């Protein structure tokens, strides 16, 4: 099963193996032949991992799953178009959002924070969920914060140099839309330690953690994530106290009912709202992955800008 949400251990181990090949510049062949279940969040993670091979001109190829549903998902996901298009040349700063086709998925790599793109994605999602254009301010906040996080923190030594992948899966029959966001940076929890040596903030996470040591001694990275969500630990890579409010803001939006099924994986920490658990991954994920769904019970507001649609 290639699903980061439902098989996080298996996928993170697979991605770690791909990572090892990337770092040694070893060509890879991705065998998807025996994958029985492939989800759109899995496609987003795979795209994010393989894009680096393309960008660094490391040869790779792969095969299609035997399973017809899995084959349909990867073929229709935009995976190949996104992987082969964009890295041919310089990254396109103004990629556009195309409403999903029959397969109902959108996956693109972007770099800048694009709030207008977020608004258009939400408008399309709202038509699947409510049958009309509506605004979802909590989802918009989440998209902005995630893009922002990638721009600022995913590669602390080179802000704005990494891109992100968003997959949007419209499940028409259930009036539900699932979102997966991936950035393949250093991960939220380790971003502080990547400040250049000599920087005032180098190794700041160690100092920060020492303040919370009694709480996290047995909880590890999942406990750090919980402390950040709950606003007890204010984590910012910049060292500026007024920053670092993005993750608590996303968690607040989830708690306020703006979206459902919130799952976050970063470094060795996994939070799954579906069973309200924080746990440690045996193979850490070097990046940030967030999943959530939108359904008719979530908060929304009447459309206010159809004229800009």
């Amino acid at each position, binding site marked *: 099963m290639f699903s980061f949400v439902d098989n996080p251990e298996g996928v993170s181990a697979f991605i770690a193996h791909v990572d090892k090949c990337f770092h040694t510049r070893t060509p890879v062949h991705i065998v998807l032949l025996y994958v029985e279940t492939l989800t759109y969040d899995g496609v987003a993670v795979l795209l994010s991992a393989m894009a680096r091979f393309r960008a660094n001109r490391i040869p790779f190829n792969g095969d299609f799953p035997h399973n017809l549903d899995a084959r349909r998902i990867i073929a229709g996901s935009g995976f190949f178009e996104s992987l082969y298009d964009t890295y041919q040349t310089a990254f396109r700063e103004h990629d556009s959002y195309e409403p999903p086709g029959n397969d109902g998925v959108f996956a693109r790599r972007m770099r*800048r*924070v*694009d*709030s*207008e793109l*977020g*608004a258009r994605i*939400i408008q399309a999602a709202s038509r699947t969920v409510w049958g009309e254009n509506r*605004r*979802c*301010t*909590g*989802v*918009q*906040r989440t998209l*902005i*914060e995630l*893009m*922002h996080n990638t*721009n*600022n923190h995913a590669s602390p030594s080179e802000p*704005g140099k990494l891109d992100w992948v968003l997959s949007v899966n419209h499940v028409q029959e259930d009036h539900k839309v699932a979102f997966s966001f991936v950035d393949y940076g250093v991960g939220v929890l380790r971003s502080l330690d990547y400040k250049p040596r000599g920087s005032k903030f180098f190794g700041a996470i160690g100092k920060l953690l020492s303040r919370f040591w009694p709480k996290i001694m047995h909880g590890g990275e999942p406990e750090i994530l919980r402390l950040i969500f709950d606003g007890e630990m204010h984590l910012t890579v910049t060292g500026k*106290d*007024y*920053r670092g*409010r*993005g993750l608590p*803001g996303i968690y607040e939006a989830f708690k*306020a009912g703006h979206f459902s099924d919130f799952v976050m994986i970063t470094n060795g920490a996994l939070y799954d709202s579906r069973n309200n658990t924080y746990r440690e991954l045996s193979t850490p994920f070097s990046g940030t992955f967030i999943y959530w769904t939108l359904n008719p019970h979530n908060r929304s*507001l009447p459309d*206010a*800008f159809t004229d*800009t649609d």
Partner: protein
Amino acid sequence: MLLRIRTDFSTAPGPRACEEGKHSGEEFRKTVLAPRVRDAIDRKESLLIDLDGTAGYGTSFLEESFGGLIREEGFRLAQLKETIRYKSDDEPELIEEIEAYMSSAEAAVGKERS
């Protein structure tokens, strides 16, 4: 005086800083918010900021806009509290959030000064 973010700035407010993307909090503060606040203070009028009708706000946009009034533009919290009023029927909780950002900025600036 009225400042309606949806029509006077953008329906889709964006990131914190100009270099991060379009419709940033920094751009809003510099080109719209701070000049209007200054104008309102000069005229001894109140400024009603209408937050409704947008796609939504990131925390960094709000912090940079409103916390930045104190941190970057040199306004004081008491001045702003006296001048600014808010309308936020879409998300009433935004008002409390904005006020918290301004209070934190005032505390940080006060600490630097002392």
